[in-house]
């Protein structure tokens, strides 16, 4: 059995599916148009930033962060399916070509990401080094670092069959710091520093490689990772087109249970939705990411109009996704048997809207004030606008949205 062919056929069908969705999104009109406008706005903002950058600006430090994150996060795409545990397990010893193909593919994709980042960062590199050759060399150096990180990531994954997950996490954390050091020293052209951290990274990889067993492969982990990736892509694409829901992995977040609404006879839907929001849906991490991105944007461009645009953008992006929480496909069919009137399900969604959009608008407005992007009176006005938006979306938009279909 030629298992590498199996990998490439899976890769091909996944890309065919992705291209089909992308075509639907592009043909969709409204949302891509708004995205285009946002990208153009970002381009102009970047131009302004480049014009503003003072000579003593720590560009090396600024570039270290995205490069370190990118090379450390060297996820290996395997396209392992749940049924593989039954059908591929008997040929586990013949799976080497499959995973070799998977590593080649993953490294290629990461190098494309790296290329995009380097293209975006090119003006900053040029300010720093004023030499195209140096930038090309930097890309080649980061390419080596990236490929080696893909290998280490794969060895770390394989070690999960024999090592505890927290030990693997510690290894990843160590790798993050070694990568950070290597990137930083390279950008500073500090040869001894680069050599020291690169040797550390090599030693780590060598040690891990020696620990990796020939078999078994981490089937469950690969399966869970694939599930996560698919869910994330679907959630992203779901912002633009209506897609069938995927089984979402549950993150238990036990520490958060005390903050969830308690049981009462009147709040069955809110009880369920809040738990789904924190533990199962992608919406909780999305809401956090949106707030963080908004804050970064405001910190970089502390302008009242930027704040207002970011504020509205965040509310819009979150509000269009929130109704999916109340889609019946997210839940087992037993919810249909509960003696609950349709309005109860809508109330549950409304309560989530009021709290989450409320927190989002309030935190962004307060941050804008703290960052000095707005005066106190303007901030108060923005909070008031947020209150009106939260109320309007929760009471009028969410209950009528086509995506919520519980009853």
């Amino acid at each position: 059995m030629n298992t590498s062919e199996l990998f490439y056929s899976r890769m091909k069908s996944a890309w065919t599916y992705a291209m089909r969705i992308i075509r639907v999104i592009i043909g969709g009109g409204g949302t891509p148009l708004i995205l285009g406008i946002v990208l153009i706005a970002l381009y102009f903002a970047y131009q302004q930033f480049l014009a503003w950058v003072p000579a003593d600006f720590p560009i090396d430090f600024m570039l270290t962060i995205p490069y370190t994150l990118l090379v450390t996060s060297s996820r290996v795409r395997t396209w392992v399916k749940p049924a593989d545990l039954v059908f591929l397990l008997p040929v586990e010893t013949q799976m080497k070509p499959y995973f070799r193909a998977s590593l080649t593919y993953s490294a290629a994709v990461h190098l494309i990401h790296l290329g995009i980042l380097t293209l975006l960062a090119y003006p900053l590199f040029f300010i720093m080094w004023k030499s195209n050759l140096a930038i090309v060399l930097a890309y080649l150096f980061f390419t080596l670092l990236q490929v080696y990180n893909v290998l280490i990531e794969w060895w770390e994954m394989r070690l999960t069959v024999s090592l505890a997950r927290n030990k693997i996490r510690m290894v990843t954390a160590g790798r993050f710091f070694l990568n950070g050091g290597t990137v930083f020293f390279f950008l500073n052209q500090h040869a001894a520093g680069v050599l020291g951290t690169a040797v550390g990274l090599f030693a780590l990889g060598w040690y891990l490689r020696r620990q990796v067993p020939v078999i078994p492969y981490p089937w469950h982990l690969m399966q869970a990772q694939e599930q996560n990736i698919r869910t994330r892509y679907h959630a992203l694409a779901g912002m633009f087109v209506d897609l069938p829901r995927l089984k979402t992995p549950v993150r238990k977040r036990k520490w958060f249970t005390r903050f969830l609404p308690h049981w009462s006879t009147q709040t069955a839907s809110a009880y369920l939705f809040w738990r789904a929001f924190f533990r199962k849906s992608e919406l909780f991490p999305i809401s956090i990411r949106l707030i963080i991105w908004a804050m970064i944007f405001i910190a970089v461009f502390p302008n009242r109009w930027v704040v207002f645009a970011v504020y509205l953008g965040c509310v819009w992006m979150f509000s269009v996704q929130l109704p999916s929480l109340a889609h019946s496909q997210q839940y087992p069919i037993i919810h249909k048997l509960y003696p609950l009137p349709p309005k109860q399900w809508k109330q549950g969604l409304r309560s989530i809207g009021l709290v989450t959009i409320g927190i989002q608008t309030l935190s962004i407005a307060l941050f804008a004030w703290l960052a000095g992007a707005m005066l106190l009176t303007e901030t108060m006005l923005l909070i008031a606008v947020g209150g009106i938006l939260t109320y309007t979306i929760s009471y009028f938009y969410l209950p009528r949205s086509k995506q919520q279909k519980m009853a």
Partner: protein
Amino acid sequence: MLSIQQLYGGYSRQFPVIKNIDFSVSPGEIVGLIGLNGAGKSTTLKNILGLITPFSGTVSIDGKTLTEDPETFRNQLAYIPETPLFYEELTLWEHLELTASAYRMPPDLLQERAQSLLTRFRMQKVKNWFPDTFSKGMQQKIMILCAFLVKPRFLIIDEPFVGLDLLATQSLLELLQSGKKEGMGILMSTHILGMAEKYCDRFVLIHEGQMRLKGTLAEMNQQAGTQNKSLDELFMIAIEGKQS
């Protein structure tokens, strides 16, 4: 009374899975729904529960259908599915709380019934666990606990003993018996004919989507033109169309 009249249903109008199903379940009795794999038992149950809409015929409780009074209809029914259907994001205890909330049970009743059920099914220790860590039998217990927490007027059970260990099967049978004594009407689909014969008061025997025999053992013997045949024997007669 739970009444099913001239029910036609399935997934395609051209090829209905069940045809002219007609029977009733009275409070305080257990009715066994018997048939081979693919006979239409689960489709019948889903039509009764309103999970799929019948092509024709009616399902009513005390003369009221689901569309006429959905809340009252739903309030009187609980369902134990063949395959455990649970919320992955809720713990066992949260399933019980959600069920109690949906059926508007008072808090003290929730505590009393839930504790008793958890003890009976030996699930106290795992009540704050998420069901994805449970075995299939334990997942099935969640369904049983939620259904008996409500103590509905009518309980619909689809192959209830699949995956249950011996003690849990015994506990479930005891609960069914005590539910029946308290006036609960139970419709139970099962393959285990020996158990059905022992615990059910009446039977509905379905084959290829149609009712072949229904009633007590004596009534079914009469319909089949036999005497003193066991449920196993009547089942074979019904599906093979011959007497053994």
